[in-house]
């Protein structure tokens, strides 16, 4: 659905996005993570044909950037960083205006549908200036969806929202997943990215990493299994370390922490070996690193290049 080839954007001497290579598949929810100034918004703006790349190109919904910009704009919906609504106009008028600009056939029907879908129908005639931040954000999402585009760009959709409004917005995005749309999400909210995104690209001018949230955790930290053993003895560590598939083992707070691949397959052998060595295994669990840990690790090692095979 989106194919990005060497996309680069420079503002004077500053490189905002550097040689981005990426494929985003139809129906995928893809998240860009990165600090402020990492080039996330610039990337979305380029992909929405709002600004021109300095070099490289992209195909969005089958149209080539720089050649079919009007067609791209017709086929993408964008939720900009700021809701950008006309405060003096009513919610209904705001949406109707954009529906006409997108040449929506049944403007009234479409506006009604999205106002109802986002719970704003009752307040449709009120000026948007009287709306709360959450309501404005919902209206901006409705605006992005009005022409029912196959590709949707959401730039920081829950920033500044209270937990309840954030949840509503997240639920709406989850609902869209079922409709087969391709959604590209820029976010600082790692938990949100973890929950919503099929794949994540960590961007800091260049793409630092790209994979599913689970795979990113695995790639960065490996999988760690913790064995709670009554009376941990030094020889248990050696028993576990004898296995060739064990990448690392250490004793932490009276527990054995083992780094290994495919714990579902390997754990029974480890448990059996420990029991044979006289250990009383109380229970076994996996240490799950959060996406935040992954992100911070990648940011601390910003020169980490993506695996060639990742860029697919």
């Amino acid at each position, binding site marked *: 659905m989106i194919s990005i080839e060497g996309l680069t954007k420079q*503002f004077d001497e500053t490189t905002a996005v550097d040689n981005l290579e990426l494929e985003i598949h139809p129906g995928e929810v893809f998240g860009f993570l990165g600090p402020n100034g990492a080039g996330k918004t610039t990337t979305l*703006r380029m992909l*929405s044909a*709002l*600004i*021109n790349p300095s070099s490289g190109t992209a195909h969005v919904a089958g149209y080539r950037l720089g050649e079919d910009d*009007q067609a791209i*704009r*017709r086929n*993408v919906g*964008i939720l*900009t960083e*700021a*809701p*950008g*609504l*006309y*405060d*003096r*106009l009513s919610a209904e*008028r705001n949406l109707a*205006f*954009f529906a*006409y*600009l*997108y*040449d929506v056939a049944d403007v009234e029907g479409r506006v009604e549908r999205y106002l109802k879908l986002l719970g704003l129908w009752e307040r449709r005639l009120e000026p948007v200036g009287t709306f709360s931040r959450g309501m404005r954000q919902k209206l*901006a999402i409705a*605006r*992005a969806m009005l022409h029912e585009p196959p590709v949707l760009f959401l730039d920081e959709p829950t920033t500044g929202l209270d937990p309840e409004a954030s949840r509503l917005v997240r639920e709406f995005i989850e609902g869209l997943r079922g409709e087969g749309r391709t959604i590209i999400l820029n976010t600082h909210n790692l938990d949100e990215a973890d929950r919503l995104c099929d794949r994540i690209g960590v961007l800091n001018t260049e793409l630092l990493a790209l994979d599913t949230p689970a795979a990113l955790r695995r790639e960065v930290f490996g999988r760690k299994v913790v064995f709670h053993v009554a009376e941990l003895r030094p020889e248990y560590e050696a028993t576990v370390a004898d296995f060739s598939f064990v990448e690392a083992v250490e004793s932490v707070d009276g527990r054995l922490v083992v780094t290994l691949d495919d714990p579902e397959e390997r754990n029974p052998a480890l448990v059996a070996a420990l029991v044979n060595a006289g250990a009383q295994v109380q229970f076994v669990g996996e240490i799950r690193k959060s996406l935040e840990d992954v992100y911070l690790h990648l940011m601390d090692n910003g020169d980490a290049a993506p695996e060639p095979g990742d860029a697919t």
Partner: protein
Amino acid sequence: MNRLYQIIRKEWSEVFRNRFVLLTVAFLPLMAALLPLGILYFIGSSTDITNDLDDIPTSFMALCNDLTGQECMQYFLISQFIVLFMIIPLAIPITIASYSIIGEKTTRTLEPLLATPITTAELLGGKSAAAVIPGVVATWLAYLILVIGTALMGVGSGVMDSLLDPFWLIAIFVVGPLLALTGVSVAVMVSSRATDPRTAEQTSMLVFLPVLLIFFAQMAGFILIDARLVLLIALALLVIDAILLTAAVRLFQRENILTRWK
């Protein structure tokens, strides 16, 4: 065409909810129509204007032909107000365009707007039309009020005829719309750089200077604004507008506006 109409409709829905804009649109035409009517009334009821006639430039006296002294004075004073009628089509579009374009900037509505399939020509065309039309209509309405008011006052037919001569008609129906275009082009250019509607409006108002210069030159008797001069002004404006409109469209760079507007 539909997008152009939608832009105009949206602009008017928004901009006329701004009291300052509304005041400008309503106040200027009323002043332009009522001020000369008041003066006409005052001179009409005055018994001795012999001394005042000396203040009329000789070049203008030549235009009075068969008019009585009182009618010549009325004609002269009304002619001075032509400048007010030239200020309306400049001021109203400048005010509307400044608020409309910088309004998009301050409320950050321009990015979602530019993300739609709208072309720059449609966007600027819609915004310009939304600013020009009220300016032109207000000028025409003010002129209509002046003509009807003058007729109702029962002033001499010579004065009435002078209000309907080509000098006024070209000024109102040709120069007025051209000045409105000048105002909008300047406002678009200034707004592309400014960050505050008032600053943009005040900077754009510099375009009044040539108009005021003509006004004072006429008052001082240096020039005589007659049909020929108005026609020349119209031709000059045609060229100036073509240059300004091209410059305004070139300055309105989507990418720069999105990435450099703060």
